[in-house]
């Protein structure tokens, strides 16, 4: 084999701590290497042309590039060598940036290490073979998990493009957290006025099937061909019959049911529709509070329902659907502030969360949009907002910024001053994070036009005194301790991964970070893809973000699916396992361990059994290869010989 080695300097990224010329020189010592050079930016157009020229001029049969991580540029260089007529698998990469130049300043050691990594790549390349992909058909249906604004947007965009969409929502209605908001920053648009039409669209699109009160139970398959089981939870109301008239809700005798839609600030009934604009507008029974279930008798709703939709015996139902792609938009939960003992740990009724205040402000909220204290219904005069509760706080394991609180506090303070011009609003903040279009102007308006008092410092303690709440904080700009006598305290509770996010990630085989937010494929360049092909992300499930970003990501994920579905088949990677039938001893261990059922028995003439890999099902993990005693199954492009060659370079 004639091998060429190209050592990238990556500007100074590599060259400043690695002697790239020396690495290239040493590469010429290795067997089969006929050409080696070092270049400023190998991934650039001229850099790629240099490789292509060398392939032709030097008649190269294999190429090694020593540069950044193959996770970054392997596809780039594979395309480049392919253009020059080589098979794209006759290429290897040595990672001398992320694994060498960026992690040590010792030039001598780095150069030695880079040279050895190149040697390993060359040794491996000598065992490479040309490989070509195969193709499988795509099932052009898409599953959207989560019906918040990101999921709604993704579903609508996919449906608009003519795709068949299934939208699965855990709650009885779509709308997510946005449906609970009163207004949105920085325009003070009414939240339900802008979200409502989109929710109605979802209900009306013929190619969207909505499963509310449902969850994803299991996921099998792979890109183009996922098979998903969905659990439709028992609502105890036959939604095919329910007209959403609301009579059951009026007559239900269980009147002290905490109203979760109103963040438990008011009460609702044990049967009903969560809010007037709900989609689907269907009733659901809350079994935890329904007297038919808690006391074994009642039956009022069953008697009253004009269409006979009530069915107390209803059980969860499982349905299976096939999809070619999945968009995950499972949103977030609000940080539970009971871990802040210094703020009362949830013991003080007038210390509330940001979302609770949002419900108080809302005309459809528990107090009809009148601002009053949950404890005694009194109109507050002094209202304190505290930023960063459950954000940027390592002591409660939430060191990240939730990204939206600065803005929503400004909005809530403006709305408060609008509703109650005589009130005083105080905002305790550490920094104001308002990097969006018209965002900082909005925060300035809160201060300049609406007279909201911003105090730079955290609050150390809140305690009740004479029917007030004493807020003891700091003004670090003043270098002083300050106290505010408040009537109501709103904690700008932060954003955290939604309950069950980790379990869903495991079903989908996507990664999540230590806080439960889903990992995108690349933080900058592949922000809506995951490392599992065919699974895309939208909204806060990937990390804290506001409404415009969530909507943009929903559209982006939809565009990714459209692009995927624009073809009828997809290429499957040829990096799959392959059985050498002559070596196979038919012990069946590979079949036993394969996580994907990708290996089966094949009968040769004379009834002899051998293992056989189905390349379209094989995901290329190599577990069979590790298990096979005579090593008859070999994972292509990561064969025993290739790994042994790399080991031998280092150890022999």
């Amino acid at each position: 084999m004639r091998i060429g080695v190209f050592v990238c300097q990556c500007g100074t990224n590599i060259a400043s701590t690695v002697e790239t010329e020396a690495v290239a020189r040493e590469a010429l010592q290795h067997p089969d290497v006929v050409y080696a050079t070092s270049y400023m930016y190998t991934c650039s157009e001229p850099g790629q042309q240099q490789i292509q020229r060398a392939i032709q001029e030097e008649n190269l049969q294999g190429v090694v590039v020593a540069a950044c991580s193959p996770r970054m540029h392997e596809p780039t260089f594979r395309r480049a060598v392919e253009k020059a007529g080589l098979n794209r698998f006759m290429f290897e990469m040595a990672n001398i940036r992320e694994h060498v130049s960026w992690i040590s300043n010792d030039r001598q050691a780095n150069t030695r290490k880079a040279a050895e990594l190149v040697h390993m790549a060359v040794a491996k390349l000598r065992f490479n073979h040309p490989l070509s992909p195969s193709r499988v058909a795509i099932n052009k249906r898409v599953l959207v998990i989560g019906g918040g604004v990101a999921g709604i947007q993704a579903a609508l965009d996919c449906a608009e493009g003519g795709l068949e969409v299934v939208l699965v929502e855990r709650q009885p209605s779509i709308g997510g957290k946005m449906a609970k908001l009163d207004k949105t920053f920085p325009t003070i648009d009414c939240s339900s006025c802008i979200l409502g039409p989109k929710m109605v669209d979802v209900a009306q699109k013929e190619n969207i099937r909505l499963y509310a009160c449902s969850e994803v139970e299991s996921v099998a398959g792979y890109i183009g061909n996922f098979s998903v089981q969905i659990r439709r939870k028992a609502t105890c109301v036959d939604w095919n019959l329910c007209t959403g008239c609301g009579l059951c809700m009026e007559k239900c005798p269980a009147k002290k049911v905490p109203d979760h839609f109103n963040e438990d600030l008011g009460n609702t009934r044990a049967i009903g529709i969560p809010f007037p604009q709900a989609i689907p507008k269907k009733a659901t029974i809350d079994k935890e509070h329904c007297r038919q279930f808690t006391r074994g008798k009642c039956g009022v709703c069953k008697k009253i329902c004009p269409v006979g939709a009530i069915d107390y015996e209803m059980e969860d139902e499982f349905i299976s659907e096939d999809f070619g792609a999945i968009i995950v938009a499972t949103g977030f939960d609000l940080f539970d502030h009971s871990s802040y003992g210094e703020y009362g740990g949830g013991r003080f009724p007038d210390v509330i969360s940001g979302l609770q205040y949002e419900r108080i402000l809302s005309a459809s909220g528990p107090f009809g949009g009148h601002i009053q204290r949950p404890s005694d219904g009194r109109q507050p005069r002094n209202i304190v907002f505290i930023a960063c509760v459950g954000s940027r706080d390592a002591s409660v394991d939430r060191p990240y910024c939730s990204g939206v609180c600065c803005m929503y506090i400004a909005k809530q303070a403006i709305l408060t001053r609008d509703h109650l011009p005589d009130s005083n609003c105080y905002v305790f903040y550490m920094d104001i994070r308002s990097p969006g279009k018209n965002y900082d102007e909005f925060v300035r308006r809160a201060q300049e036009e609406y007279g909201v008092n911003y105090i730079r410092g955290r609050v150390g303690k809140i305690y009740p005194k004479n029917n007030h709440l004493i807020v003891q904080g700091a003004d670090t700009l003043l270098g002083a301790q300050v106290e505010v006598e408040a009537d109501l305290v709103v904690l700008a509770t932060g954003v955290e991964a939604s309950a069950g996010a980790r379990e869903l990630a495991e079903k989908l085989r996507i990664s999540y970070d230590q806080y439960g937010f889903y990992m995108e494929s690349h933080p900058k360049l592949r922000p809506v893809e995951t490392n599992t092909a065919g699974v895309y992300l939208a909204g806060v499930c990937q990390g804290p973000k506001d409404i415009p970003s969530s909507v943009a990501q929903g559209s982006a994920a939809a565009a990714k699916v459209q692009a995927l579905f624009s073809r009828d088949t997809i290429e499957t990677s040829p990096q799959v396992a392959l059985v050498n039938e002559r070596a196979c001893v038919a012990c069946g261990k590979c079949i036993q361990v394969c996580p994907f059922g990708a290996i089966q028995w094949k009968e040769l003439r004379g009834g002899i059994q051998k293992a056989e890999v189905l390349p379209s099902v094989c995901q290329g993990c190599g577990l069979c290869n590790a298990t096979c005693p005579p090593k008859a199954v070999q994972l292509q492009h990561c064969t025993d010989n290739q790994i042994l060659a790399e080991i031998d370079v280092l150890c022999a």
Partner: protein
Amino acid sequence: MNSDLRSELHKKAEQAWPDLELLIGWQAGYDDLHTTPVFIRDSAEISKLIWNPWCTQNLAVYVAKHFAASSGKDDKKIGVCVKGCDSRSLIALLQENLVARERFYIIGMPCKGIVDLRKLHALSGAARILSVQVNAEQVALKSAAGVLHFPLDEVLMRKCRRCRYPNPLIHDVLVGDPLTPRTDAHEAYNDVAAIERLSLQERLAFWQGELDRCLRCYACRNACPLCVCQDRCIAETRDPKWLTQYMHLPEKFMFHFIHALHLAGRCTECGECERVCPMEIPVALIKEALNKITLELLDFEAGLDPQRVPPLLTFDAGETGI
């Protein structure tokens, strides 16, 4: 007593014969001290079958091979004689679906232990052994130098002195009465423990000394009832090329790692690898050490319960500590 058992064996083999196409057992060898396997395809040969403390071979070794080759026509089965230890090899083969239970007729031989010829030779000194008699628990050894008497226990194989399963764990018929097991389980790994007591350097030196003698004749591998690869062993293949044919210590170590790790969680400690080694390398010890590890770590012993999957061919998402 031996003759009683032998006639019982013959009787039971005769009874089973109409259902069998082949019966694998032991026959007398070229002298008192040796036996060889016999493959009976004609009922007239049943009389060749013997049973005594010299029936050392693990006949399960032949089972997988003959299972693959047999047609199974007329629903005829393969008969095989097994000792307790050998029966575990059969179960291990069943655990991996390498053989089908319904195709076998198993004649179980409760066993008090097999004589280790090396020990006999050592005890007799240089003199040629003329004859050996076993009476109850005593061995009478007649050599040119005279007659020597030993307790039988002293000349049993290493594996027999730590045997926990003298009775076949799987059988269709038993020859003789079941025996009570001798050693407590906690003593089973005494030999491994003795090595473990050495320092790291001493252990390395020990294996360097032992494995340096290895000829890479692969007798150990060929005698192993659970080695599925046989002539496709990666110790010899070119692709993939795990080993060279160079006779030096790393390659020898590597070969024994291959054999041992391929048996991790599978070895039933029949000891055949060690018995057949011409260089008298205690190769079974490596597998015993691995068995001790899989027992402690994964609570698994190969060849006991036909329903259990060998631990390295499965997983447990809930297990902790690893």
